[in-house]
């Protein structure tokens, strides 16, 4: 765990301690479970986003994809009577295809990620709304899918299964990002795509793969969100979720210029954001301030991180010089 991640962890614990002192109910298992459920949902989203951000890209269509795929999933299983073990992989494939399309436009046709995914944001929301004719997709009363519900909204040993899913995904993705060749290529491309190309890396494919991973993870979280709200009005469902995901990554130490950030960081970023939302509700802060609190904390977090970096850099330089001098003297 890097120092940056450690700092974030400490911040999370300090905030948690303060809230717990003010309102001890913060530590109730049920509250922790509720919050970790949402951490699970948003965390999966944020990991997907992180893979794209590492490459120096961005995925703005996340919220709209959550709405579109959520609508489709509920429609498939609730209205069209598709078996969920069929619908679930189908949705994941759809998510992957959306990612592939974005990756293709970005790497082959050389469009800017911001532009491509901004168009995605507009298009998918439009399609979702058109699909339901601006209505709501939801389950009928009493319509139940026990296994699916257990997997998505259930709990094991008191821990929400969505959170367990996040942990599993995070572990797999940690290996992919930090230990595999693919992960190494992602970092390299984010820092210097040209050089990666000169090294014989098929950068186009790697970047495309990042968008596909983001698409699949987004699809997965779309299913989780759909099973959480159990009803989706496509006009508003998932709005601004891309911002949450990006904010979590940025808080977790990712640079939007690419090539920087760790998987633990993005998870901790998600945890902090959800903790803040929980805090607003538990401390009875007016919900209108929810956004402001979130924005303020991100800003402060990034500022502290930045200033800390400047400070450390200076100290490192001083030390390096001393060592250098000492070494030279010893020669």
């Amino acid at each position, binding site marked *: 765990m890097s120092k940056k991640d450690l700092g974030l962890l400490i911040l999370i614990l300090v905030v948690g301690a303060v809230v717990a002192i003010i309102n001890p109910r913060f530590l109730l298992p049920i509250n922790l479970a509720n919050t970790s459920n949402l951490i699970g949902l948003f965390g999966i989203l944020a990991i997907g986003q992180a893979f794209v951000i590492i490459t120096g890209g961005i995925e703005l269509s996340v919220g709209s994809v959550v709405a579109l795929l959520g609508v489709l999933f509920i429609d498939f299983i609730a209205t069209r009577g598709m078996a969920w073990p069929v619908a679930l992989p189908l949705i994941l494939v759809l998510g992957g295809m959306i990612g592939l399309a974005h990756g293709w436009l970005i790497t082959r046709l050389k469009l800017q990620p911001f532009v491509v995914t901004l168009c995605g944001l507009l298009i998918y929301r439009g399609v979702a709304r058109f699909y339901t004719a601006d209505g709501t997709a939801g389950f009928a009363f009493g319509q139940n899918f026990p296994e699916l519900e257990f997997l998505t909204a259930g709990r094991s040993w008191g821990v929400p299964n969505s959170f367990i899913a996040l942990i599993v995904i995070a572990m797999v993705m940690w290996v992919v990002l930090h*230990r*595999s060749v693919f992960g*190494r290529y992602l970092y*390299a491309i984010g*820092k210097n795509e040209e050089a990666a190309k*000169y090294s*014989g890396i098929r950068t186009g494919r790697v970047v495309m793969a990042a968008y596909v991973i983001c698409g699949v993870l987004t699809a997965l979280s779309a299913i989780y969100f759909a099973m959480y709200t159990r009803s989706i009005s496509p006009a508003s469902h998932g709005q601004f979720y891309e911002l949450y995901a990006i904010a979590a990554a940025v808080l977790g130490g990712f640079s939007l210029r690419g090539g920087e950030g760790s998987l633990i960081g993005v998870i901790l970023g998600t945890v902090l954001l959800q903790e803040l939302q929980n805090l607003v509700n538990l401390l009875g802060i007016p919900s209108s301030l929810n956004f402001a609190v979130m924005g303020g904390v991100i800003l402060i977090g990034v500022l502290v991180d930045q200033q800390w970096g400047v400070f450390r850099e200076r100290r490192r*330089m*001083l030390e390096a010089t001393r060592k250098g001098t000492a070494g*030279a003297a010893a020669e």
Partner: protein
Amino acid sequence: MAHRLLSGMMNYSDASIASTIAPFLSLEGVRKTYPGVVALDGFSMEVRPGEVIGLVGENGAGKSTLMKILGGVTTPDTGTITVDGVAHDGLTVEASIGSGIAFVHQELNLFENLDVAANIFFGREPLRAGPLKLVDRARLRALAAPLLKRVGANFSTDTSVSALSLAQQQMVEIAKALSIEARLVILDEPTSSLPLAETDKLLDVIKALKAEGISVIFISHRLHEVERVADRVVVLRDGMLAGTLPKSAINHDQMVKLMIGRMLKEREKAAESARPPGMVALSAKAIRTNAYPDRPVDLSVRHGEILGLAGLVGSGRTELARVLFGIEKSLGGALQLDGKDLVLGSAADAVANGIFLVPEDRKLTGILLDLSIAQNISLPNLPAHARRSLVSVRAEAATAEKQKSNLGIKSPSVATRTGTLSGGNQQKVVLAKWLAMNPKVMILDEPTRGIDIGAKAEIYGLMRALADAGVAVLMISSDMEEVIGVSDRIAVMHEGQISGILDKEQFSQENVLLLAVGKQPR
């Protein structure tokens, strides 16, 4: 691996034997065009195993283009490339690496966010067993360490590249090339940022490669280096083969003649000073920089002189120049300009005071590649080319035309994008923008890096002309011949401090070297 076997049986240092065996690589009628230029025009050459080929030519002659074709980064428009007897229309990067061609690009291609070992084996990481393609990090380090030793690096395999100096990064690049079981190593101006000792080290590495039967193509503008290592010299001019020199015929004058098509009258040297040095122009008193926060620097440069600033890699010269130009804040100390105290908050302050910098990294900081020549030249002095803060394109063009003819910038017009110019001409644009503004103090950081011999001579002439006009010139250079040939005085830096200042009569390579390593001159 056939070549290993062969190399065991034969002694390749004997060029006459080598020439009898099949070439490892041959190029036939290679042509490559870019918008507006023919970079290569029907070029052909051969590379035999264990041969060191020196490739020389003026800026823009097409050397890098040729190497990029061999590295698979670009494909030629026409022509064939034959590797090991297999003919290709063009290579991909994979094919190039696969056939044993290793490549050190002219521009560095390292990943600052990865460590040294990861960079060396980038794209060819040792994997752990299993389908997951996980990097075997222990083996990676174990493999990288001997390579670093071979290039004489003093940093460890898990250092982050962002912490290395330019020269150290160059070493990583070379280690990377060595790490491929290479049969041909291409070095595109590897010494352009290497001074003194490191250059020697590199030339030794080249000799060691040759002894192993590995071929080397060595591109450099420093002809004496080429003289030292090359078995054969191939000269490019305007994208065409100007001639080939066998080992026996390799000498400075011959290479120059082929490169520019005539003999160079004065040998890349500036004329002697025409006037005695004047008053102190810029002086630094106990200036401390970020690179060496606890090492104060005292230095002064006089009107009308060229003060050379020599030193080893990372001795802190660039850092000092950045402080003198106001780009970076000093951590202490004071500056004086013409006897008056000077506080620099930014480069703009320096420019306002007539202190100009020609930076080390031309493409990143020297010019804006996307702007035209005229726009680049007017940029630091735009208000003077404007009426009521509206830019006058005519005034801009007039200034640019004047500079273009004064400096002999080769381009179709002053509206040409500077990105399409050759290195030497780009450097002239950087100079032109300052010359258009009456400099008081001109700082030049490696002004001839990657610049061909003809352009070099012109730039030396310009520096001398500046000095003669009363400008104080501070020239940072890692090229020993250049420092000694051009300067009126030489200051030498060692680990952030000025270790000594040499007057003209004390000039010698030995003295500069001694000071550079922190010893006293004789």
